[in-house]
């Protein structure tokens, strides 16, 4: 019975349920689903026997819109997918179009892009940590995390005027030169952040309630991760030492040294440890990068009217949530013929059913949190 539950849970009539089974609807208006995720849970008492995710509440047809905008006009739209890591989305899109144009951003632009993207990774992980801990019942980390994230958003605001949907980059490089004192601000944040991270560690890492709620919860092994396409910290926590920033470097990542953290068990606690270490590594990348930002132009020669030669390109980056890919087909006009976005949240969410079966209802909340999904990106 347990093997076929996915089909069962989708049945409109519940007549096939056993006497002690129950379909419980969770969401879309539920604070711990991080947006408008709706999950149908098939329960046997407190145990989860099957799930079905109902998504699409936030679908805006981003890929359709792309076909009716010019390449530059579409750039701000990508910020609105994973809106808590807008800079990463922008980086992926700009680099994909640059590849399509056979162009490359100047080195100075790439270095500044790297710094901002790594700051964004820290900010994204901070939101994950705060809300994840909040879901499990630890209220304090949220306030600490938002305090540090605020510092990052201030840097973004000083740099480009926006905090959330930044549109920080332009196709071909950057629109804005780094402001006076940019390095100092980044350095001050990074220096300070080391101490801050220790505060989270003190609150959570050795906390027996935290360990009890996360260890051996939502276990997924590396083979299942790869089969289901789950990427990013989920893949690394299951023991695969793989990161696109190292495997196929983009932006300026080949200039910096950093470690790829990996887990062993692939449980929620390992994913917590991996993301915490990623924040430390991002901080180190930023510190290396500000030491020597090369001089030079910030915008390459791509022209004002972008008409990429006909053809197609796929480019992917390691976004905070996993592999973020753009597959763009050009027909030689100013508007893309097709833009396909490979959203990490959408594909990672597929692993949810695998991770949640057999656990208690209370663990569902922990597992949604550890997946680190953003519904804007799931639904696009």
């Amino acid at each position, binding site marked *: 019975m347990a093997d076929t539950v*996915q*089909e069962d849970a*989708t049945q409109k009539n519940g007549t096939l349920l056993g006497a002690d089974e129950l379909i419980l609807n969770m969401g879309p208006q539920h604070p711990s689903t991080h947006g408008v995720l709706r999950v149908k849970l098939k329960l046997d008492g407190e145990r989860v026997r099957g799930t079905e995710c109902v*998504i*699409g509440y936030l*679908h805006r*047809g981003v*890929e*359709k*819109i792309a*076909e*009716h*905008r*010019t390449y530059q*006009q579409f750039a701000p739209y990508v910020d609105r997918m994973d809106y808590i890591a807008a800079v990463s989305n922008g980086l992926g899109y700009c680099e994909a179009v640059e*590849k*399509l144009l*056979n162009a490359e951003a100047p080195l100075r632009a790439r270095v500044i892009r790297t710094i901002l993207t790594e700051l964004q990774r820290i900010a994204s992980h901070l939101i994950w940590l705060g809300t994840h801990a909040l879901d499990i019942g630890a209220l304090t980390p949220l306030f600490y995390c938002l305090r540090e994230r605020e510092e990052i958003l201030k840097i973004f605001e000083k740099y480009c005027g926006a905090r959330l949907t930044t549109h920080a980059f332009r196709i071909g490089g950057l629109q804005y030169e780094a402001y006076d004192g940019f390095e100092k601000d980044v350095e001050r944040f990074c220096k300070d952040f080391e101490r801050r991270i220790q505060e989270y560690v003190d609150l959570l890492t050795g906390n027996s309630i935290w360990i009890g709620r996360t260890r051996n919860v939502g276990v997924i092994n590396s083979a299942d991760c*790869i*089969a*289901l*396409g789950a990427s990013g910290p989920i893949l690394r926590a299951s023991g*695969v030492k*793989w990161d696109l920033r190292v*495997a*196929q470097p983009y932006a300026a990542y080949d200039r910096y040294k950093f470690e790829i953290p990996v887990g062993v068990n692939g449980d929620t606690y390992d994913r917590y440890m991996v993301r915490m270490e990623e924040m430390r590594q991002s901080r180190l990348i930023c510190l290396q990068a500000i030491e020597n930002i090369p001089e030079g132009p910030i915008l390459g020669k791509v022209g*004002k*009217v972008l*008409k990429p*030669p*006909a*053809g*197609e*390109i*796929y480019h*992917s980056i390691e976004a905070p949530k996993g*592999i973020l*890919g753009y*597959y763009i*087909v050009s*027909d*030689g*006009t*100013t*508007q893309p*013929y*097709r833009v*396909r976005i*490979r959203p990490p949240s*959408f*594909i990672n*969410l*597929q692993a949810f059913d695998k991770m949640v079966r057999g656990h208690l209802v209370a663990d569902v909340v922990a597992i949604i949190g550890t997946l680190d999904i953003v519904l804007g990106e799931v*639904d*696009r």
Partner: protein
Amino acid sequence: MADEPKPPQQPESSPPEASGSSAAPPAPKSAAPPSPAAPKPAPPAPKPPVSLQVPLDNELVQRYRARFGAVVQDAIEDRKQAYLVIDSSQLSEVARYSRDEEKFDLLEDFTAVDWPRREKRFDLIAILYSFPHNIRLRLKVPVALDDRPASLVEIWPAANWLEREIFDMFGIQFDGHPGLKRILLPDEWQGHPLRKDYDILQQDTAWVRENLGIESGQ
């Protein structure tokens, strides 16, 4: 079937979109050029077509050709990225071979592109990644509207939701999918929005009226 995007689509694709979906294009089409400085002088000076797509014949392609013969219809390198054009009749065999023999263990993405003027209207695009070799390969599978390509869920479980999304957006039915239904749009929605003949302003007004209680979603 050798019509890959570049040669045929260039003359073909801009007119059909203008004529095919007559309602919407005027707005974005006219909105696009005026924003940059010189809209007119730019088009008359097209550079001589640089061939970015070149036929590919490396060892990987040769292994595929040796194994599958004419099923591999074409092998192209576009901007240093390789793709194979595969006949849809043997999609699952090629996919299984790719996973087991060539170690493309990750189905990174699976999507489709609509070319309404073509006889086989859609291209299915499977983007594969190999962890051991750190390379990517795209499989491009032309399918007609009423073709039922084999589902890849058996081979890469990641294909489950991706195929549902393709079905949702393009209306392509996959044979052997465990539960092929819409994923992003409501189940009762009529039409497949990412087809080129589905206008950007188009919507299922009956559904909107019935379920949202408003006249239009615009």
